[in-house]
């Protein structure tokens, strides 16, 4: 008799409690503020503090906006953004994603083009079917090869290699001296693919800028003889022992430390690595473009940038305002330049205008952006019309990891073609 109401009360109480602890956390607009979710990712250089500071600065410029930061569990923010979308919580703002993954389903809202044209050096760097989803605030070269000058001298290498033959020669000399020639953070799929990005960008895209458009039109294939021949160069590097045997177990973050502490002589990586060059030994590091057969410079270029806006954002106008404020904030750019090696692309500003102190290797690397040279859209990294179809990046990374242990280049390239077919179906 007494127990029954007691039990009922217990159950009811618990249900009320669960309901209460759920409703307490949502929403968050006490003073008419719009709460927007913002997907970011952390790297050793873009840490939690950078994001919090940059969000605070941009929020100050866009009244009425409150930002809830979401941090992706890995640098693969595209994958995480899809995961969130799939479970019904697509963020309102998404930092440095690949728009082509999301525009198919109409998930993104483009920026106002007059604003883009007015503010950026290369307004169309990220243009996708005529629309710009990510302000091209900065650019990157993916990859460049960074090298340790002292280790080069130790191995008797006098100058940075320009041709593929010189590159192999340098590797051989380093290995003969007992120095690990090339660092690879192979446990993180994107990092594992760096040499492959370099090879395909230099050897294939360098000769045919429209290769990716041709691939979309099915006029060329990964299994074509020229691609297979180019990718076989990667096998040459692997079989000659120019990478650490256990490179696929090295995490990206560890690969940076290993290279900067002199465990390896060369490190093919995106130019964001420049932010991780230790200040006190910066003079010991140099960079060169991924070598080609002829020695001609090919620059795998990426118009990087800030954030995309969800078409379903709670308040797209405010979201765009926030995105614009964040993108033009020189303090953010300064932090990006110094810690993430970003090459700034805002109109009418030189490096000095940001008040940055950069290393010599940064300046040398940045020089390739200004020079009149053969720039191609780095494969797998481009965010414009040359972006890979959705899902293909994963296949590309998997191929790069697989080719570290398997010899079947043609087979892996055929798999890429199959994956492409599935992706564009």
């Amino acid at each position: 008799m007494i127990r029954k109401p007691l039990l009922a009360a217990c159950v009811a109480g618990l249900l009320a409690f669960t309901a209460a602890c759920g409703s307490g956390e949502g929403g968050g607009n006490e003073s008419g503020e719009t709460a927007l979710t913002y997907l970011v990712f952390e790297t050793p250089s873009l840490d939690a503090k950078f994001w919090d500071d940059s969000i605070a600065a941009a929020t100050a410029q866009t009244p009425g906006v409150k930002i809830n930061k979401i941090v992706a569990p890995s640098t693969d923010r595209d994958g995480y953004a899809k995961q969130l979308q799939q479970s019904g919580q697509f963020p309102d703002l998404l930092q440095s994603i690949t728009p082509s993954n999301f525009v198919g389903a109409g998930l993104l809202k483009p920026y106002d083009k007059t604003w883009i044209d007015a503010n950026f050096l290369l307004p169309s760097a990220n243009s996708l079917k005529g629309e710009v989803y990510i302000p091209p605030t900065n650019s990157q070269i993916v990859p460049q090869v960074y090298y340790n000058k002292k280790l080069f001298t130790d191995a008797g290498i006098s100058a940075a290699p320009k041709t593929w033959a010189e590159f192999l020669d340098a590797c051989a000399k380093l290995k003969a001296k007992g120095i690990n020639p090339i660092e690879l953070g192979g446990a993180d799929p994107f990092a594992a693919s760096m040499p492959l990005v370099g090879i395909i960008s230099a050897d294939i895209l360098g000769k045919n800028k429209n290769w990716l458009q041709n691939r979309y039109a099915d006029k060329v294939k990964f299994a074509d003889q020229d691609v297979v021949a180019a990718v076989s160069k990667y096998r040459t590097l692997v079989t000659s022992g120019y990478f650490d045997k256990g490179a696929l177990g090295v995490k990206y973050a560890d690969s940076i430390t290993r290279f900067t502490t002199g465990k390896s002589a060369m490190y093919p990586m995106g130019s964001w690595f420049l932010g991780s060059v230790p200040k006190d030994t910066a003079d010991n590091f140099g960079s060169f473009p991924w070598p080609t057969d002829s020695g001609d410079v090919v620059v795998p270029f990426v118009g990087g940038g800030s954030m995309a806006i969800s078409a379903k954002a709670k308040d797209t106008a405010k979201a765009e305002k926030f995105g614009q404020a964040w993108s033009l904030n020189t303090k953010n750019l300064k932090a990006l330049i110094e810690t993430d090696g970003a090459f700034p692309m805002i109109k009418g500003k030189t490096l000095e205008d940001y008040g940055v102190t950069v290393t010599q290797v940064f300046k040398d690397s940045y020089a390739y952006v200004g020079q009149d040279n053969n720039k191609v859209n780095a494969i797998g990294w481009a965010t414009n019309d040359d972006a890979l179809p959705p899902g293909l990046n994963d296949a590309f990374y998997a191929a790069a990891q697989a080719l570290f242990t398997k010899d079947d280049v043609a087979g892996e390239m055929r798999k890429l073609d199959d994956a492409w077919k599935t992706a564009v179906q």
Partner: protein
Amino acid sequence: MRKKHSGERGLALLAALALVLYLVFLVLPLLLSLRSSFTNENPLKATNEYIGFANYTEMAGDDQLRASLTFTLILAFGVTVAANVLGVAFAILLNRTSLSYRVMRTVAFLPQVLSGVIVAFVWQTILTQNGLLNTALMKIGILDEPYPWLGSPNAALFSIGVVVTWVMTGFTTVVYLAALQSIPLELHDMASLDGVRGTQRFRKITWPLLAPGTTISVTISLITVLKLYDIITVLTGGGPANSTQSTALYIVKLAFTSDRVGYASAVAMLLLALSAVVALTITSALRRREISL
């Protein structure tokens, strides 16, 4: 009379609530998954049409699926065998009543208490390229250069096997200990008097009596590995080159990052069928053994 009726209804209501929850959060999702497996549902392409058995025929030619199934089955059977052999050995070794043995028994179960995420992170610091194991082995001169415990497909399979076996052994040991303790001591005394010793004693007395323990710990080991997600996700994320991508991981990847919901559902149905077949055959075989002994 009235009171009784309301009380009767109250109980029925609670039971019905449990049933409804089960139907809504287990049976209904299963049916939805089944339905979805016959569609090309893909939210990023905004497609969702009925395509018959196309997903199922596609599975036949899917290399990643085949690799993931091979990996999952090798891991499941490897871990099950290893964890049960070790569990029996460990249980026999620790089947004593003094304090020191009780402490050891407590320790043996600890891996089961920690979450897979913690387990995986701790093992990662041990197994990674510049991890504690390589550091130690190089210091004492066994290795000249770090061994890629997680960095080559075969080594990563082996490493994950070791970690999962470690976790499962905590479980099997306690189950077998419990089974051993239900064996009357006199039985062993009798046996030793009859001159039944060592391996023979194990085969004739201990092993048959462990049978119910074997059923539960073999079944649970198999099912645990078939749905394992956290340890692999943290330890290798399925890499290198998808070589440690279990079918469970592949389903989540297909559904949540490749956005191929329809195809993911079809693969999920396959994993479901596989789990059912494995669990049912193993359980019924072991039960038969239990009875025949």
